[in-house]
Structure formats: C-alpha cells, structure tokens
C-alpha cells in the first residue's frame, strides 16, 4: 500500500507501523472516568468491513502519527491526516 503522508507525500506502507482504530484517540480522562468506561474504550471497538479510520506511525520516517481513512475491503485510502491535527480538532489538549 501507499500512504500519502500529508507532509512527505506518497510513502510505502512498509515504512509505517499500524496501531488500530482511531477510536483509541478518544482516551477518557483517568481522573473522572471509572474502570467500566475505561475498559470499554480500550477493548470494545468496531472492526468494520469497509471504511475504517485508523492510526499509523511513520516509524521509518518522520515519526508522525497519522489518521488514515482506509477501506478494509478494497484498501482504498480516502484521506490521510496528521493525528495531532485530528486530536486538536477533537478538543484534546494537555
């Protein structure tokens, strides 16, 4: 696969490490969230046949974490964003 890195352009997927669903970005605040909700966030995620937003890390490159929107059936990649930008847009701060 080729991942079109927002900064570096098209790069072979061999340069990346895959993590999993971008849902993982919604980490609850540990001081205000109970074990049950935390458990749900960590373990219960969808595994869709189709469009999937997922986290990739450009380990053999610039160390950017990316949010890749990929169709898991066709491997078509619709968008690639810097995870930091996505996280900020989600309202994640410090």
């Amino acid at each position, binding site marked *: *696969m080729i991942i079109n890195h927002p900064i570096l352009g098209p790069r*072979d997927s061999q340069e990346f490490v895959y993590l999993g669903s971008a849902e993982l970005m919604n980490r609850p605040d540990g*001081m205000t969230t*109970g074990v049950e909700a935390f458990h749900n966030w960590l373990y219960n995620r969808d595994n869709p046949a189709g469009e999937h937003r997922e*986290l990739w*890390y450009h380990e053999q490159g610039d160390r950017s*974490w990316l949010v890749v929107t990929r169709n898991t059936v066709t491997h078509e990649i619709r968008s690639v964003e810097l995870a930091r930008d996505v996280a900020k847009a989600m309202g994640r701060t410090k």
Partner: protein
Amino acid sequence: MSQENRISGGQIDRSKTWRFTFDGVSYQGHPGDTLASALLANGVRLMGRSFKYHRPRGPLSAGSEEPNALVQLRSGARQEPNTRATVAELFDGLEATSQNAWPSLKFDAMAINDRLNTFFTAGFYYKTFMWPASFWEKVYEPIIRRAAGLGALTRQEDPDDYDKGFLHCDLLVIGAGPAGLSAALTAGRAGARVILADEDFRMGGRLNAETLEVGGQPGADWALGAVAELSAMPNVRLMTRTTVIGAFDHGIYGAVERVSDHLAVPAKGKPRQTLWRIYSRRAILAGGATERPIAFENNDRPGVMLAGALRAYANRWGVAVGDRVAVFTNNDDGLRSAMDLKARGVDVVAVIDARKDGDLLPGVRHLKGAEVVDTAGRLGLKSVTIRQADGRTETVAATALGVSGGWNPNVNISSHHRSRPVWDEGIQGFVPGEDGPPGLTAAGAAAGVLSTHGALAGGQAQAVAALADLGIAAKAGDLPRAEDAPVSIVPKWYVSGGKGRAWIDPQNDVTLKDVKLAQKENFSSVEHLKRYTTLGMATDQGKTGNVLGLAVMAGLTGKTIPETGTTIYRPPYTPVAMGTLAGRSRGKEFKPFRLTPSHKWAEEQGAVFVEVGMWLRAQWLPRPGETHWRQSVDREVLATRKSVGICDVTTLGKIDIQGTDAAAFLDKVYANNFASLAVGKCRYGLMLREDGIVYDDGTTARMGENEYVMTTTTANAVLVFRNLEYARQVLWPEMDVQLISTTEAWAQFSVAGPNARKLLQKVVDQDISDAAFPYMGAGNITVGGVRARLFRISFSGELAYEIAVPTRYGDALVRRLMEAGQEFDAIVYGTEALGVMRVEKGHVAGNELNGQSTALNMGLGKMVSKKKDSIGMVLSQREGMVDPNGYRLVGVKPVDPKGQLTAGSHFLEHGAAPVIENDGGWLTSKVYSPHLGCDIALGYLKAGDQKIGKRMRAVNLLAKTETEVEIVSPHFFDSEGERLRG
C-alpha cells in the same frame, strides 16, 4: 542418434552446440532451447512422474503453465527441485535429473499407487486415515510423506545471492506478445516511462511460436523490430526473464527477474534472481492465454500435449515431437496446429474434430464430430483410439497427440484483488471482470481477444486510454496488418462413456472420476471441489486444469459455468523460491548485530558474547585459568562488590525529553510522580500499559528545568519511544514537549563498587564527592574536556555511577577506566554478573517484566499514583488486578544450601500433588550468589508477601527437579541500601 526429432527452422542458434545431461545421459541442444525442447529434440518424452499415482509423464505445454515436466536442475548446493523443463533455459553443461521416481524414471516402484488407484480417490485422506487417531502421526503421515512429494531439497546452503529492487513507471506492461509490444510502443513513443516485463527469455510471446505474418513479415521478425525500437527509447525499460507475480495495492506489482538462472553459475557480483517491487501509475495486463486440454481416457501419456505446444515446439524450436501426429480439437486453433505441423513436413495422421460442421482441411484426414476415447503406450504414446461420428472406433498409431479444448485468457493478475472473472460464451473462457485492481486494464488474449490484429489494436487502445488518464497524449498510429480470424469453438470438456481414468489436473492426479465423486458426496462448490480433490493445488495452480474441472462440475450439477464460478486467484502467478522472497535478509544479515562501544576492547579480552535484543553484549570475560563460566561470573561479582566493576550499559534506551510541559508529560507516561523531581536528580520510573500491566522501567534524570533524560530497557527502547510519540502527538497534542532518541549517541558505562567514586574521580574533570554528587544525583560533566553525563544510580546495589560520553569516545573511555582502575583491581563484568547482582538486590528484569504482571505483583504497587492521570492507572485498579492474594514477588532460597534451584519451577505446599489446582506460582529468575554461597531466585508466589519465612517445594516436572525452599524477602543483599549511599 543425436537430436533425431530436430527439424528445420526455429529461433535456435544452430551454429553452437551445447551438451547437457538428463539422468546422467548426455544430449545435445542449441542456444535458444529450453530443457524440454532440447529433450524432445533428442526423442525424450518421459520427463517425470505424477504426484500421487507416479504415472509416467512428459511435457503437456511449452510454457510456464507446465504441470508435468518437473525436474531437478544442477547438483550440489545449487540443486533446485520442481523446475519446469518447459521454461528452464538450456545452457552448456546443464545437469538435470528426474524426481519423484525410484529406482528410476522408467521403472518407478511407487507406481504401485497407480494399481491401487481405487483407494486413492478424492478425499482419501479423510476417508482412509481417520482412525485410530494415534496412528496419524506415527503411522499414516510418515508413509504418505515417503510416497508423495516432488523434488528433494539439498539441505545445503544456497551459495547464490538474491536481490530486491524498486522501480517506478507511468505504465507497466505485463507480457511482451503482440498486445504488450503494441502497448509499449504506443506509450514509449508518447514519452511515458514504460516498463515492459515478460517471463520468457525472448520477447514476442506467441508471435515466436507462430507462422503468422505481422506487417508483411514473419511475426517473430516484427517482434524483433519492435523490441529494437523500444530498446532505443531511454524512457522504456525492457525486462525479459521477468515474471510479474502479483498485483498488490495502489499500483504496486511484484516481479521476479531470473537474472542468472540461464547460466551455470551467476557472474561475479550478480544475483541469481531479483525480486522487484514495481510502483506503476497504470498497468496493462497483456499476459496472453493458456490452452486447455480435453479430458479423455489415458490423456496423460508422454506425447499427449496441448496442440499449441506441439506447434510451438515445431515453429520456435524446430522440434517435431513425434513422427506421426494426431490432433484432437474443438476449435479452429487446433486446426492451425495441424496445418503448421503438416507445413513443416510432419506426418499428421488424423485431425479429430469435435465439431460436426465446417469445412474440411485440405490434404489431411479431418474427422468431423469425432473424439479420442483412449490412448496406449506405457512410457510414451503409441496409439490413439478414435470414435467417429457414426460411433465406429478405430485405433491409429501416433507418437504425439495435440489436444486443444480452447484458450483460457490469463486473468490471474486481474483477479488478485478478488475480482471474479466473467464468462465469455464466444471464446468459451473467462475474461477479466470489471472490478479488478484499480489502474489495471487487459489487452489482447488476456482480455479474451484472440486474434493477432485484435491484440495489436487492443494494446494500442489500452495504452492510449491509460496515458490519457495521466494527462499524457499518445497517438493511435497505423497498426501493422495481421490476421483477424474469428474464434470458432464448441464446448467440449470431456469424452464420456469411458471406464478408465481421464485426467483433469495431471500434476495432482485429479481425474474426471474424482470430480464426479466430489459432486456425489456434495462437495460441489468450486472451493470445496478444490480442497476435496486437490484440483489446482499443485505447483502449477491449475493453469491448464481449473477451468476444465469447474466446467465438468457445472455439467454434473446442471448449473452454467458462470453460475459455478472460479476459485480465488492469488499471487504468485508462478512459483517463487523462498530465497528470492528472503533476498539478502538471511543468516546474520536477517538481523544484523549492533555492537556496543566497548565491543572491540571486550573482544581483545576474549569476552564471551550473548545476543540481547538486537545487540551483542559481553556475557562474561574469562581470565586465564578459568575453565567454567561460573568461575568468571563469580569472580566478576565478588570483585565488583569488593572494589569496583565496570559494565557497558549502552544498550539501554535513552530518550531526551525537552519542553515546558516535559514534567507534566512524564507524569502522564510514568505511573509514579515525576513533577516533584528536583533538577540534578534521577528517579526510578515505572511505565504501565493502558491495561494496567507493567510495560517498562528505567531511571529518568532531570538535567534542567525543562530537560530530562529517560532510560528504557534494552528490549523496549524502540517501543517506548513509539509510545511516547503517541502520547505527545495523539493523547496530549497541546503539550510543549519534544523527544529524540539518543540511544546510539551516548556510550554509557556503569561503574559500581566501594571504589567506584575513587576510580571515577581520577577520570572526570569535576568534583564528584558525596556532597557534590549525592545519591541519585545527575549532571553534565566533562571527561578530559569531552562533554559527558554522570548519573549516580545503581542496579548492582553498590555505590555506583553511570557515565555517558559521546559514542565515539566509548572505546577510549573503557580503556581509560581500566587503566585508572589498575590500582583498585577494577574489572569489567558481563551480563551474567549483572544478572547475579540484580537478583541479589531483588530488582525486576525481563523475566519479571513478562507482560502479565502488575506493579502490585512486583511489590511496587505503591508506586502507582492515584493523584494524577497516567497511562494504565485506571485499569491497574481492576478487580482481578488488585487481589490481595494475587502473585507477589518473593525471594527464594533452598533450605539446604547445597540444594539447586531451577528457573520455571512451580511452588507447591508440602504434600500437594503437582497439578494446576495446587499451583502456587513460579520461579522467574535463578542465579548462584557467591556472597550467600547458594542458589537464590526470584519468583511470583500467590499471597507471597504473607508467606515470608514459609517452607515450600519448588517442583519442575520438565527438568525433573524438586527442591525444598524457603520464601524470603527478594532483597538478599544489603536490604537497607547502605552501600549505594556510601
């Protein structure tokens, strides 16, 4: 007689004669020959034995689809099994041997299987070897493994190199027949970057095997001209001997180039094969078509071939496979084979045409509405039995029979993304479906267009369209004139009414009967049919047999062929050697060692090294007279604790962390508190995973207000860095914090022991007295003017420092320390002594940080701060993880000081049976402590903190050991920590 079947013509170089051997017999051939064409020229039809029945076999084809003629090439370490003789290029001195036959190809003892064929029907594994279950591994499998199988491996290391390479292009053209050449010419003339790849050693595809004209000249000559024009274009890369093996995602294609397979030994510095990864913006599949056989009784004898292959051997290689040839066909292309052979002077004894209608061929015996019902000749075809339209049968003497059941477009590559090919009634074959790999189109025979004109036109049109997509204007120029015959074919899959066996998949010995049996036993879907009968599962992946098999199944189930469908096509298109996939990544090059800065020095001392993650570290450093590793390790431990020892700890991960939020960041990633750490001090940090399990540990030093240096374990250096980047970019993106890995930048040594300070003070430029550099202090210093970092931390439990200098000074530093340490009898210790001292101090390491243990298990539960949110804090509080009776880290000593401990032993109460219900935990790390004079160990014991002083048994059923032990505190040595504060 030499080359008795060689006739005139063909694209071989008769000015040179090469010698080669097959099963030890010497033959002659010419440049341009394949092993199969050369053997056939010498009258050798028998080249192999089938997989299951050990039936005598000769080549079916003249190309890469070959199921039968599998041989071993070369000898010694270069011996290569399962090579298709039909594509193995001849070279002078080639050695080939037959396989799957014993004692000889002509008399094969295992041919008894052929007599027992009623036992070996479809699904015979499932039916015959079901019970008793215990017999499977001990009795059935060894028997089957001995009987089955093809070639043998040499068990010697392959002496050749295999490379990997990367290529980029606008247009990849797969196949260099008329369609591919036409596409490449069109795109090349337009200035596009083109790669034209063909599996053959000569470009031209079927044009080389035909007498057809293109543009008023022989097709093969036109192809030569086209290749010459393409060769002159700097924007075109021509790749012969290169098989495109698969379509992967986003325009990436895999290709194997057989760089040196046509040579006895690769030229110096050249690889045997290269695996290419081709990045293409567009691709055209011009891979041609493969002829398929018709199933009839005993259709597998040497001499029974695809009709187009007989024609190819005659036209391209100047070989008449037999002196008397018959042709069995259901289509016009079979007639072309008959007429080409006749034109070359071969005696065509009969053309058996399944079609009732149409013109008769001039000058040959052309039997309409006829079929072949049987053949004879054990080791080679002798006669063919024909049933004519009126039902009369007759037997005709023939030494070769060409069979044509029609042509299957080579849709494989277009179906690698699960696209299902579509049935084309007009050619009675599957053509590429709509939803193939994006950017790939098919042209020519691969697209189901079987005429030469259609191929030239299709190649040009697809190239123009593909380039238009890319914004490159290509001209559709005048096409050279070529035949444009329509396809005339009637469906004819098998000849019915026979009692014997009719082969569909000859390599795996799948017959018409097997398909019928599968259908009867309700394995009628194509995927079931494949697995129940092994149809298409051999090395040829059913290139000739699959469509035939599913057409038979369609007939049996009353469904149409498109309703029946095909199995899924997967890469690779043809077999790929494991060495090619591995490339240079083999042996030590698979995982190269990283060497520590003191490696050279340690080597000079005769150190014994051990692999630790990606590193090679000194395990112990024997002194003269030491004959057992324990002598060296005990000495290193005692010397360190008595005076001073030095250890290279460069392999630990080092990460520089800077920014105004660095302290807050560390509080997030470490379970314990870091914000309170003073500048110039270090602290032990415990890192959890989000699930609450301990992930990693290490010390982190605050070098400045906003500047920290973190250390990680050797094994997790890369992973921790990845997780920190994740925390920084994804979880807390507004934090002002920057990271850089400096593991390779600093050479770091531990200097430990009562004389550590005295030694270091001789080496460093600053005052490091206890007042100036207290316990857990950290700071930037210099060593002879060279910048350095000093940390007063201890893993050994001694007064100890870790000193870091830029990596290039590491070798000098170890030498300087040893020189300055002479007066203290300083020694360097290895990882074994390191391990002994950490167990003596009760520090956890890899065996305890096992990915299943919590801080509480390790006795570090209080370190997890609940006053702040950190990774893993919440879930470390889960019910099962805070069990007061859960595992706790304990120390273990044998009750009898001479008693031996075994790592992995399980704790049992006295009198308890060694069963899982009684299991109390296990012993994780064991060492011999020279101070205590006995074995000591760490372990995880249920409610271990409540069992200090208790006596138990440590039982190891694998090692067959049992020792009575006392559960003690894990801190065996200086439990008050007085020494490290000294």
